[in-house]
C-alpha cells in the first residue's frame, strides 16, 4: 500500500496533542519499516477544530481521502498496526482508528466551502517549500514578473472588488494604486498579522498552514507598487506562525523567491519579521507602523495616510494576511472565475462544529452557522451571532439570512471585521457579552485620546452597574449617549468601534438590558 | 420637578444644610452681609447651622442649600430627609457638587484604610480607632457628591461660592424663577 497520513499540527490540534501524534506515528512507521509505503507529515489546519486532534489519510490508489477526529494521541504504534491490518484485509475504506471518529467529508461543512486562500492549507507540509512549489506556489509571482505590467495587476485587483480582509474593508485596488503612484523607489509593503480580536484565528491558520501564499502575495504587491522592502508584523502570541514564517522566509530566500533579482527579473524584495508585544491597538495600521519603528504603539491621525507617509516616513502599502493570500488565487483564476471571492471565518462559540472555514462572499449567516456549523449543541436555539470582535456587533437569530458581505452586516449595526464569528445560544445574556467586549476595549485602549481612554472606563462601569442591577433608566440613557459620543469622537478604529457591541445589543436585545433595571427606579 | 410658582404670596421656607464640608460655604453665606436682612424679609430660615436653632429637618421646605459631600451615615440620613421634604435642592459649593476635598479620602479606597491611616499610621504612638456606635457616625466607604445620592435641582459650584454667586442663585429662586448660571463669575470650580 501507498498512503499518506496528514496530521494537523496547527495551534488548535497541537493543543490537543497533534504534534505528539505526528511524532508517535512517524516513530511507529519507522520502527515497522514502512517509510516507503506510508508517509506521515504535519500539516496546517484541517478545518473542524472542535473534533481535533485531526488526521487525514490519502490512500493510494484512488481511495477517497478520509478524515478522522478525536484521535487518541498516546499510541501511534497501535494506530499504525490497525491501519496495516485494514490495508492487508482491503478494508481501508471502512477503517477508523480505535477511539477516534470518522468525519464525513460530504458534510456541508466541507462541501459548501470554497477554498482559495486555504487551498493548500492542510494539504502541504508548511515547513517544506518543495511541497508548496509542487502545489503551485510562486507561479503567479513568476508570471507577474515576466509580464512586468504593474498597471494591469492593479487594474485586475481593482476590478475584482477585493477589499481589505482585516476589518475595515477598504478597496485593495485603490490602496495599491495610491502607493504605486507615489514617487520614489523606496517603498514598503507591510503585512498586518497582528490578529487580535477575541475569537478570531483566520490569519493564524493561514500563516501556520501555508505561509508561502502570503509571501507570494506580498511579493506580487511589492512588484506592483514598486516596493523593495517587506515587513510582517505578527503578534508574539502566535509562536508557531512566527516559526513557520521564519522557515518559509529563509526557504524562499534560498530558492530565489525573495531577495535580489527574483526569478531573474529586476525585482528586489525582501521580507523581515517584526514581532508585536501584546497590544491589541497595534493591529490598527498607524499604531502598527509606530510599533515597527520602535515607538510606543499609538495611532496617529490620518491624513497623512500610510500610502503617502508610512513606515519610516516612506510610502507604505499595508494589507492584512488574508488580503495578500487572496492574490495568487485571484491572478491564477482570473476575474470571472474568482468572482466575488471568499471570506475565511473562524467559527466558534455555541456551535456543534467549530473551526476555520472559507466560504463564497455572500453566503448567508444561517448557512454558515446552521448548515455548516450544525447549529448549537443539543436542545438550544441560536440567540445571536457576533461578528467583528470588539468593534463589531451581534446579528439576532431572526436575521441570520443576512448574506455575509460588508454592506449587509454594516446595515445591521455590525461589521464583517476580520472574520471572527461567535455563535451564542439562548442562554447568553447579551449585556454580559457587551460588557466582555467593553472590558476588552478598556484594557486595550492605548490612552492617547480622551473619549477612548476615559469613556471606555465609564462605559464599562455603567455596564457593571447594570449587570449588578444597580442601574436606573437614566443610567441606560447615559450608556447610550456616551456610546454614541465615544464612537463619534475617538481618534482611531479601536475607540470608534468600542461602543458597537453595546449599541448593537441595545438595538437588537434591549429587553436583556431592561430586565436588569429594577422597576422602582427613582433613587 | 415643577418650577416654584412665582405667584406664591407667602414667605419662602429656606434651609441650609452642612454635610461633609469645611463650613466655608456657610461662611460665604454669612458674607451676604446686609442682604441677609433682605433675605430674612423674603424667607423664613427654617433650618440652618448658622441661622437657626432647630435640630430636626422640617417638612415643606421650599429651598435648601446643601453644603458638603455625603461622607457618613448621618449625612446619608439627613440628605434623604432633605430630598423628601424640599422642593428645590441646591448643591451648594464644590464639596456638594464634586466631593472635592473630603472626596480626597476616596483615593485610599474605603473607610477602613482612611481610619487606619488617620488614627493609627499617623498617630504619635498611642493611636486608637474611634468607636462609639450611635454617637460618632460611621464613615461611608466613599464620599459622594450630593447628586450621586439624591436628585439635585440646582448646582452652585465654588470653593466656596462667593456671596454674590450665592445671591445670584437664591434671589431668582425666591422669586420662583430658575437661576441661569454660566460664565466664570457663576460656575467656576475652585
Amino acid at each position, binding site marked *: 500500500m501507498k498512503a499518506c497520513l496528514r496530521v494537523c499540527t496547527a495551534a488548535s490540534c497541537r493543543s490537543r496533542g497533534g504534534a505528539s501524534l505526528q511524532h508517535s506515528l512517524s516513530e511507529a512507521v519507522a520502527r515497522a519499516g514502512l517509510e516507503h509505503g506510508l508517509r506521515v507529515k504535519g500539516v496546517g489546519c484541517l478545518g473542524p477544530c472542535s473534533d481535533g486532534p485531526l488526521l487525514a489519510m490519502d490512500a493510494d490508489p484512488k481511495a477517497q481521502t478520509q478524515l478522522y477526529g478525536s484521535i487518541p494521541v498516546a499510541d501511534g504504534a497501535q494506530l499504525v498496526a490497525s491501519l496495516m491490518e485494514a490495508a492487508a484485509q482491503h478494508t481501508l475504506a471502512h477503517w477508523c482508528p480505535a477511539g477516534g471518529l470518522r468525519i464525513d467529508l460530504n458534510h456541508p461543512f466541507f462541501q459548501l466551502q470554497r477554498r482559495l486562500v486555504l487551498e493548500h492549507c492542510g494539504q502541504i507540509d508548511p515547513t517544506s517549500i518543495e511541497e508548496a512549489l509542487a502545489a503551485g506556489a510562486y507561479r503567479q509571482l513568476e508570471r507577474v514578473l515576466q509580464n512586468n505590467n504593474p498597471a494591469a495587476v492593479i487594474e485586475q485587483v481593482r476590478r475584482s472588488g477585493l477589499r481589505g480582509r482585516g476589518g475595515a474593508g477598504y478597496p485593495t485596488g485603490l490602496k495599491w494604486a495610491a502607493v504605486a503612484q507615489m514617487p520614489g523607489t523606496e517603498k514598503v509593503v507591510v503585512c498586518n498579522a497582528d490578529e487580535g480580536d477575541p475569537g478570531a484565528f483566520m490569519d493564524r491558520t493561514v500563516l501556520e498552514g501555508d505561509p508561502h501564499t502570503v509571501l507570494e502575495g506580498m511579493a506580487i504587491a511589492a512588484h506592483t507598487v514598486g516596493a523593495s522592502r517587506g515587513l510582517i508584523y505578527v503578534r508574539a502570541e502566535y509562536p508557531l506562525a512566527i516559526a513557520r514564517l521564519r522557515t518559509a522566509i529563509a526557504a524562499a530566500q534560498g530558492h530565489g523567491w525573495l531577495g535580489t533579482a527574483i526569478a531573474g527579473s529586476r525585482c528586489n524584495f525582501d521580507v523581515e519579521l517584526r514581532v508585536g508585544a501584546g497590544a491589541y491597538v497595534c493591529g490598527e495600521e498607524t499604531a502598527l507602523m509606530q510599533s515597527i519603528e520602535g515607538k510606543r504603539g499609538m495611532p496617529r491621525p490620518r491624513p497623512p495616510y500610510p500610502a503617502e507617509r508610512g513606515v519610516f516616513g516612506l510610502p507604505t502599502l499595508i494589507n492584512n494576511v488574508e488580503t495578500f493570500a487572496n492574490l495568487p488565487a485571484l491572478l491564477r483564476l482570473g476575474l470571472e472565475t474568482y468572482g466575488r471571492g471568499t471570506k475565511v471565518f473562524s467559527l466558534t462559540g455555541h456551535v456543534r462544529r467549530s473551526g476555520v472555514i472559507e466560504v463564497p462572499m455572500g453566503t448567508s449567516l444561517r448557512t454558515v452557522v446552521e448548515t455548516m456549523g450544525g447549529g448549537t449543541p443539543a436542545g438550544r436555539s441560536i440567540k445571536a451571532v457576533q461578528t467583528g470582535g470588539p468593534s463589531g456587533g451581534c446579528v439576532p437569530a431572526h436575521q441570520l439570512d443576512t448574506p455575509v458581505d460588508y454592506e449587509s452586516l454594516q446595515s445591521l449595526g455590525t461589521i464583517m471585521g476580520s472574520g471572527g464569528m461567535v455563535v451564542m445560544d439562548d442562554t447568553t445574556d447579551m449585556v454580559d457579552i457587551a460588557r466582555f467586549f467593553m472590558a476588552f476595549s478598556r484594557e486595550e485602549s492605548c490612552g492617547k485620546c480622551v473619549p477612548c*481612554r476615559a469613556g471606555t472606563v465609564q462605559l464599562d462601569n455603567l455596564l457593571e452597574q447594570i449587570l449588578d442591577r444597580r442601574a436606573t433608566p437614566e443610567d441606560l440613557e447615559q450608556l447610550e449617549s456616551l456610546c454614541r459620543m465615544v464612537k463619534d469622537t475617538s481618534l482611531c478604529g479601536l475607540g470608534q468601534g468600542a461602543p458597537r457591541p453595546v449599541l448593537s445589543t441595545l438595538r437588537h436585545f434591549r429587553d436583556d438590558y431592561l430586565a436588569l433595571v429594577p422597576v422602582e427606579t427613582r433613587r | 420637578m415643577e418650577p416654584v410658582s412665582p405667584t406664591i404670596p407667602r414667605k419662602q421656607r429656606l434651609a441650609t444644610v452642612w454635610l461633609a464640608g469645611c463650613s466655608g460655604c456657610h461662611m460665604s453665606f454669612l458674607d451676604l452681609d446686609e442682604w441677609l436682612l433682605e433675605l430674612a424679609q423674603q424667607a423664613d430660615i427654617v433650618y440652618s447651622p448658622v441661622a437657626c436653632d432647630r435640630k430636626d429637618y422640617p417638612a415643606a421646605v421650599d429651598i435648601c442649600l446643601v453644603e458638603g459631600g455625603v461622607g457618613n451615615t448621618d449625612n446619608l440620613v439627613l440628605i434623604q430627609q432633605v430630598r423628601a421634604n424640599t422642593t428645590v435642592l441646591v*448643591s451648594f459649593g464644590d464639596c456638594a457638587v464634586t466631593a472635592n476635598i473630603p472626596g480626597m479620602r476616596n*483615593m485610599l479606597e474605603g473607610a477602613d484604610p482612611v481610619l487606619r491611616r488617620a488614627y493609627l499610621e499617623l498617630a504619635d504612638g498611642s493611636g486608637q480607632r474611634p468607636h462609639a456606635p450611635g454617637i460618632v457616625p460611621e464613615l461611608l466607604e466613599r464620599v459622594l457628591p450630593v447628586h450621586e445620592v439624591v436628585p439635585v435641582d440646582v448646582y452652585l459650584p465654588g470653593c466656596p461660592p462667593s456671596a454674590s454667586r450665592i445671591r445670584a442663585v437664591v434671589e431668582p429662586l425666591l422669586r420662583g424663577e430658575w437661576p441661569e448660571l454660566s460664565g466664570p463669575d457663576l460656575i467656576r470650580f475652585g
Partner: protein
Amino acid sequence: MNLYSLRIDDHDVAIAADSTVLQAAQEASIAIPTLCFLEGLSAVAACRMCLVEVSGNDTLLPACITPVQEGMQVHTATPRLQDIRRTLIELLFTEGNHVCGICVANGHCELQNLAVEVGMDHSRLPYRFPDRHVDLSHPLFGMDHNRCVLCTRCVRVCDEVEGAHVWDVGWRGEHCRIIAGLEEPWGAVEACTHCGKCVEVCPTGALFHRGDTTDEKHSDPARLQALMQARQQQRWNP
C-alpha cells in the same frame, strides 16, 4: 501664495492653502476650544476638544490638524459639538483628582476655564478618584499626577523644543501616566536641564514650581511662542 476661501459658522475666511481649520478659525476670531494643542508644538489631536463638523462629511474632524479646503463649510459650535465638549471635560474631571480649591493653578487653569466654557456646573458621570502620586524629587519643580490630563504638552516641549526628551507616556489606557526618564523619579533623570518649559506649557497644576501654593501658578505659553519665533528669525532681543 495660494489662498483657499471657506466658511466657518457665519464668517467667510480666506487663508493660505496650507493652513489648518483651527488657524482659519483664529483668523476669523472664532474661538474653538483646545486643550492638547499648543502653538509651537506638533499637533496630536488627542483631546478631541477642537472637533468640528464639516458639511458633507459624516465624521467629526479635529480642527488642529485638518487642512483647509476650498469651499469648506465648517460648523464649530453646534449643539452636538457643545454636548461632546462638555462630556469630554466631564471625562477629564472624573478620571483624575481635580480639586480646584487647593490647586496651585486655581484661577489660571485651562481645564478649569474649559469647564466654565462648556457650561459644566457638575459632572453627569461619576468621579473615579484614582490613586495617583506626586513626584517631588526634583529640586525646582513638582509633578502631581492627580492633576494631569495627559495632554502630552510636556512630552512634546521637552522633546521638540528643549531636545532633552525627559518625559514620555508610560503604560496604557486608564493606567497611562507621564513618566520621567525610564519611569524614574524626575529628580534622578540627568537629561533634565531644569529649563522649566514643561511647567510653563502645562495647562493645569500638574507641573508646578516647588513652593507654589494655592492659586500661585501662572503659566504663560506665550513665552514658548516668543522663543520659537526668536529661534526661527534668529532675533533674540526683540
